[in-house]
């Protein structure tokens, strides 16, 4: 466990589903926003089909998950994307929003969090 005090807790939110088809990415993102609002450090990790949430220029009508990610990022939520999942889907770093940080190793991220929530 990374911390014992509530205010310095770190929560990792793993999103495994693509935007627009499922409510899960939205559910994870709203949870991250609520956590940072309460003083909890929150990171979103996009894996499996969740990496489609990080694509630049995406939009479904009036809703853009990219815009929502920007809102979360500006509120202090770290946006991480697993490189292995990107490569498996033929996606590259250049195709992603600039706020996303691509990571190769899960160990450091998982070990540094107090709680892990999956969506």
């Amino acid at each position, binding site marked *: 466990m990374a911390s014992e005090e*509530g205010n310095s807790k770190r929560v990792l939110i793993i999103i495994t589903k693509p935007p627009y088809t499922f409510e899960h990415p939205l559910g994870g993102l709203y949870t991250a926003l*609520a956590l940072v609002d*309460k003083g909890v450090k929150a990171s979103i990790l996009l894996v499996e089909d969740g990496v489609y949430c990080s694509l630049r220029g995406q939009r479904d009508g009036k809703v853009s998950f990219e815009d929502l990610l920007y809102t979360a990022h500006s509120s202090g939520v770290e946006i991480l994307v697993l490189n292995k999942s990107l490569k498996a889907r033929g996606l590259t770093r250049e195709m992603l929003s600039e706020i996303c940080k691509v990571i190769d190793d899960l160990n450091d991220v998982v070990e540094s969090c107090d*709680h892990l*929530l999956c969506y």
Partner: protein
Amino acid sequence: MKVVIKLLLGPYTFEHSEVAVKIAEKALERGAEVILFLYMDGVHCVKKGQKPREFANIEEKIAQLACRGVKVVACMRCATARGYSLEDVVEGSSFEPLHYFAEHVKSADVVITIGK
């Protein structure tokens, strides 16, 4: 010990709600403070008047948990999106914004999400 369970799916189609109830029961037996937070389709679990023929009635199980001291809370945004008002849900349950969940995560020893 404080255990927060976040359930994302409704009853019967999947087994997730039964698993959430069982975890809540066991945590309660071990003396834990338990919060069952129903999120997204999880809010369907507290709908009044459920009559499943082939499955254990989740409404009854959740009502029993509430009687035994589990805080049963449905996400206000998710419940509103699905057309629920307080008259529609099990006695002992309530609606709270997502910030309620966030506040309890701060002091929780264990946080479990069920229904990915």
